[in-house]
């Protein structure tokens, strides 16, 4: 290449026989996208579960708590299955490494699984036939104001009867605390750290989307948790779940729209080919499911339809994002052209010189 040629403004870009510059992610389907979905579902469900506990929605608290625990457990199974050497999973916990979102993520997942398991256990142990759904406006207290319609005397549940008395005594307290911590700390992180996990790579479609992906994933997590809540809770207690689902669908849809508008070239893979088809289908399902949730109030069938659409949309968006990342890694254009432009604009990527020399 001579100087003269370099002066020609990016009419064409060159590559080595069209081969990719970076390696595509090795993560598989359905493992990785399913893990992303389950992690989001579990994270947002734990937030919803804590809020339901605090405000006296007993049935919803139980559903959300159990969903959070099951999601975290099933998610961990998918994550471990994704490893090249699953038997070495615990090597993740031999270091605590803030520069690695995967390291932070495995700690978040480990703590979150534990917390949600305790919270769910206390919910199940305390489970009792629900007489009437909450109707009175609940107060926000940690102990949870029970709606006045509930019987004052608390029947001992069948499950609790089998527990050692010490455990049965401690469990409600531990469960409340675990639910609260999961709800305000690990849950929100579970639902969003996976966006950092993807963005902290050289994959252009992921790296450039590091602002939108967390919101997309948070929205999607809310939508999926709301959907699960709607599907598994009696209608009278499912109101907040429906609101969560609607807000989640709105956030996901908005973040997706911003992403496509802002990203330019790096955003191309999100609307082309297989990834594009998945993203479009996900958007239709999520937006449709969200809209349906706002009007489904009276109908059990519409609620079910809405919940299923939201679940499918939430799952599909993860498959779409994974595929967009693969496509953007496979085409050298997405790596080379932006870097060339940066150089042409006289803004080379530069870092401070190394802080240390080697001993």
């Amino acid at each position, binding site marked *: 290449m001579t100087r003269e040629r370099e002066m020609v403004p990016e009419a064409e870009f060159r590559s080595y026989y069209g081969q990719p510059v*970076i390696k595509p992610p090795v993560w598989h389907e359905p493992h990785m996208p399913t893990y992303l979905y389950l992690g989001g579902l579990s994270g947002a469900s734990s937030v919803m579960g804590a809020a339901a506990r605090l*405000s006296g929605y007993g049935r919803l608290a139980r559903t959300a708590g159990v969903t959070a625990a099951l999601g975290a457990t099933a998610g961990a199974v998918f994550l471990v299955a*994704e*490893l090249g050497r699953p038997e070495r999973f615990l090597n993740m916990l031999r*270091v605590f490494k803030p520069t690695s979102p*995967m390291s932070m993520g495995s700690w978040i997942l480990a703590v979150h699984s534990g917390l949600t398991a305790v919270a769910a256990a206390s919910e199940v142990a305390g489970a009792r036939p629900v007489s009437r759904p909450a109707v009175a406006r609940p107060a926000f207290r940690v102990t949870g104001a029970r709606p006045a319609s509930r019987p004052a005397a608390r029947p001992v549940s069948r499950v609790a009867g089998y527990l050692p008395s010490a455990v049965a005594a401690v469990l409600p307290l531990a469960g409340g605390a675990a639910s609260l911590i999961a709800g305000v700390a690990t849950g929100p992180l579970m639902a969003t750290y996976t966006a950092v996990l993807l963005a902290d790579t050289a994959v252009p479609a992921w790296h450039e989307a590091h602002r939108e992906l967390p*919101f997309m*994933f948070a929205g999607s997590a809310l939508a999926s948790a709301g959907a699960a809540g709607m599907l598994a809770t009696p209608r009278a207690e499912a109101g907040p779940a429906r609101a969560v689902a609607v807000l989640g669908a709105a956030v996901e849809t908005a973040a997706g729209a911003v992403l496509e508008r802002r990203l330019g070239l790096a955003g191309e893979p999100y609307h082309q080919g297989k990834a594009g088809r998945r993203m479009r289908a996900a958007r239709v399902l999520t937006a449709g499911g969200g809209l349906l949730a706002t009007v489904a109030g009276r109908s059990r069938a519409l609620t079910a339809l809405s919940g299923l659409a939201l679940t499918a949309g939430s799952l599909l968006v993860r498959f779409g994002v994974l595929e967009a990342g693969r496509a953007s890694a496979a085409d050298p254009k997405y790596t080379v052209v932006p870097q060339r432009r940066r150089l042409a604009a006289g803004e080379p990527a530069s870092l401070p010189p190394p802080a240390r020399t*080697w001993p």
Partner: protein
Amino acid sequence: MTERMGFFTDTSVCIGCKACEVACKEWNDVPDDGFVFRATSYDNTGSLGASTWRHVAFIEELSRVPAGPGQSGDGGSEGIEGWLMSSDVCKHCTHAACLDVCPTGALFRTEFGTVVVQADVCNGCGYCVPACPYGVIDRRERDGRAFKCTMCYDRQLGGLEPACAKACPTDSIQFGPLEELRTRAEERVERLHEEGRPQARLYGASPGDGVGGAGAFFLLLADPEVYGLPPDPVVTTRDLPTMWRWAAGAALSLVGAVAVSFLGRG
């Protein structure tokens, strides 16, 4: 052992013999990477990967490309004008994304300033693979773990130079203290410029670039992307604080959305 060691690959003298590829496979006992005929050039290994730690790229320079001095080419005739050859390798970055993101500590910085995977720790999570801005490290699917060039850590410990540098018949691959190599490389570029080859440039030699300077750098005779190299790579963890801030914003919004959903009812 107090100096950072490195590779200087001078592609202007590479003859494409692939002695480095073979020597690397031999010494490090690297398995085959599938017998694929690519039908693009004399390159049959294609790219760096879990089982290709040195890769010789072959680029056909067609006659529409202006000929270098001493070559007769009028730019009008078809055919191969010449070859560009370059032996690629892991860059052993100063700010190595692979090392930053590895969640098990399998990737570590050696006393020679190089980046090495410990095979007995790696659990094959595959995170290092898309993190590397040069597309170097990869997971060996049959094995499940990630592999890449170690700059012959074992040989260095024994005071030997890496196998590829040892085997290179033209000294295209040079091994030594990084600072010394950088000085030598700059002199070499100057000489090539004087000889009328203005296209010669160093790649990865600047300690201030997007990866803080590479421990393995190159003298190239064309734009990096021609060789399959990124023109201006950057370690992705540079933006990690920003990413966490956006994620924290999203996490707070999530909690807010749930709170709103419950407050509005009852």
